[in-house]
């Protein structure tokens, strides 16, 4: 996707503020992307039936990473190498006819089959699968096909083992894709988890799933309403709001043992919307202890909590920046809910959004410079879309454009993907996309699914 970068050089900072800025997206997912060719791998013997699962998984992982331009399969040469030995360097031209350039003599598959038009790839992933004993063995290579010879072309040459099954084929595909993504400086989401709220059992519980929507598992069983989940940066704790006590309060669970951890809710009509500091040493939340729901910061067991906002308005969704020091949050202090930023003690609060519509659900990019949030700007009240904003310049860009209500955007640990909820397909479901709005994928289908958080 080609995007024009608005020329803001020389413009006054004041003019730049609050103007749509597509370069924000470029910052996150931009740059020249390697062109990756991934021909279908073949399998020997008992590995053969599982190759379609393998090929689909490998391609999806690489494509969804957003790191690559995937070369069109229809342009691939007929001779596809399965291992390094299949490459045959062409012979040097023996004689050159007068008036014609000397052509090398083709001996078999070669790097230029992939690097030159019509494929035009910069990189090629190839290999094959076979069985050895009761194991599926996937041999995978990644070549830089711009190199002059096979030995300098090889970036990855590795074997991956798994059970001889569709699940095993998926596992080895995920692992090979993760190595390729790592090779290009990307971060694999393979071991990350998405937590979310689902009502598919009849009550709203916390659930988890893999980033591709597989392995959906119920985490809580309070048979009440759970909402506003938040996971600590290290992925060991989850805090959420629940009506299990009758009035809404915060519960914290260990994600390692599943057990509930101590947290003493203040004597308030509502205590909710928890958020951890990056070091996990403090918990922020919103509580009506003094009247309007205000922001507090305290120990993760609820002790020594201090109020950090002093307004006669609803203050909620406190999110501490990844390196600490700043909190983005939502406040109704100037009218409709808007996104604000302030210091850890509540000082120097500034509004980040323009005051138009409702702005809500801020989420920090891992780099601490960008946020994603939901904004109804330009639409009817409640018709939220996902926006990105550079908090220093307050320039923003819009990723969804009225395809249903799009809310609760949360950055993936790789800083390139966003998980969000959308009702574009009917009921509210969990979706992921690349942070330029492409590669949109629906992860859930059962019941209504909301409030995703992406944890390491």
């Amino acid at each position, binding site marked *: 996707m080609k995007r024009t970068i608005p020329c803001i050089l020389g413009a006054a900072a004041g003019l730049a503020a609050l103007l749509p800025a597509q370069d924000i997206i470029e910052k996150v997912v931009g740059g020249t992307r390697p062109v990756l060719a991934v021909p279908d791998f073949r399998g020997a013997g008992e590995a053969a039936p599982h190759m379609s699962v393998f090929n689909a998984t490998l391609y999806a992982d690489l494509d969804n990473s957003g790191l690559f331009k995937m070369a069109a399969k229809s342009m691939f040469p007929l001779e596809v190498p399965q291992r390094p030995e299949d490459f045959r360097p062409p012979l040097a031209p023996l004689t050159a006819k007068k008036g014609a350039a000397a052509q090398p003599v083709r001996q078999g598959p070669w790097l230029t089959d992939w690097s030159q038009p019509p494929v035009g790839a910069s990189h090629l992933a190839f290999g094959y699968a076979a069985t050895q004993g009761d194991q599926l063995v996937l041999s995978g290579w990644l070549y830089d096909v711009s190199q002059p010879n096979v030995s300098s072309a090889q970036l990855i040459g590795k074997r991956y083992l798994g059970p001889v099954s569709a699940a095993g084929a998926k596992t080895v595909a995920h692992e090979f894709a993760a190595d390729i993504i790592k090779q290009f400086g990307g971060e694999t989401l393979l071991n990350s988890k998405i937590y979310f709220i689902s009502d598919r059992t009849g009550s709203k519980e916390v659930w988890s799933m893999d980033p591709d929507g597989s392995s959906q598992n119920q985490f809580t069983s309070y048979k009440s309403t759970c909402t506003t989940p938040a996971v600590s940066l290290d992925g060991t704790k989850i805090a959420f709001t629940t009506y299990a006590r009758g009035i809404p309060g915060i519960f914290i669970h260990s994600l390692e043992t599943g057990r509930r951890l101590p947290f003493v809710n203040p004597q308030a*009509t509502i205590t909710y919307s928890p958020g951890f500091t990056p070091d996990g040493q403090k918990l922020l939340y919103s509580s009506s202890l003094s009247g309007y729901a205000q922001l507090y910061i305290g120990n993760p067991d609820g002790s020594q909590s201090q109020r950090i906002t002093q307004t006669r308005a*609803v203050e909620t*969704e406190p999110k501490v920046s990844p390196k600490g020091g700043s909190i983005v949050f939502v406040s*109704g202090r100037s009218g409709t809910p808007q996104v604000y930023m302030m210091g850890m003690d509540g000082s120097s609060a500034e509004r980040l959004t323009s005051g138009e519509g*409702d702005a*809500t659900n801020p989420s920090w990019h891992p780099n601490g410079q960008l946020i994603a949030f939901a904004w109804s700007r330009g639409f009817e009240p409640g018709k939220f879309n996902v926006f990105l904003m550079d908090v220093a310049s307050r320039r923003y860009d819009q990723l969804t454009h009225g395809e249903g209500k799009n809310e609760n955007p949360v950055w993936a640990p790789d800083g390139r993907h966003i998980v969000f909820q959308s009702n574009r397909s009917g009921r509210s479901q969990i979706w992921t996309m690349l942070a330029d709005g492409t590669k949109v994928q629906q992860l859930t289908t059962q019941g209504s699914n909301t409030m995703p958080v992406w944890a390491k």
Partner: protein
Amino acid sequence: MSSKRKSAAVLMSIFLVLFAAGCKKKPAPPPPPPPAPKPVEAPPPPKRPTINQFSAEPSSIERGQSATLRWSVSDATEVRIDPALGVVQSNGNRTVFPSNTTQYTLTARGPGGDATATASVNVTAPPPPPPPPPPPVTRDFTRELETRVQDAYFDYDKSDIRDDARSTLSRNADSLKAILRDFPQKTITVEGHCDERGSAEYNLGLGDRRSTAAKEFLGQLGVPADRLKPVSYGKERPQCTETNETCWQKNRRAHFAPGQ
């Protein structure tokens, strides 16, 4: 008549006949009548059964009481009483408990034929019991709240008590005071609700404001505020799920429900 006098009368009659005959001249005796045809030695005809008695006493009962059937039959080979008793002895009595008026039929069968007789037991319904005592004056708490206390409505993104909500809550205050007086152990939940448009997170805070604002207003009108428990449901429990202002307005409310 005693048997002595009977015999004397017979003797006298004989004497008088003999005397009269002696006075008359003896005529020639008439020829003897032809001999009577010799009677066929047929067996005596079999007797029909005789039902000497079949009665029900008393003949009228109240439902639940009993009557006694009595019967006496001769010259029968089989005696049945229907309904209920079936084949019985020739003589006997049985107690019956008919629930409705019943005509019993006794059928006696014998070699000489059948005979039937009936007896009725008239069953009258017992008088109805007295009506149940009036229920004690315990009204239903939930129903009281549902019928006497109305929802108070709010503007979009607001928790101020509007004029119409002010009237509603003022009326509610009198009802709530009375209900809380009648149910001294109960508390009332003041639910704060929002329409679907705001974010779920912000709406939880807004719903909390609505429930608390309604509670505080009622407290100023003398409703015991410590027995009003605010709880925000945000947009978690809409009572109307359409996407239009009529429906949204229904959801922007403070609602009164039985306490936990």
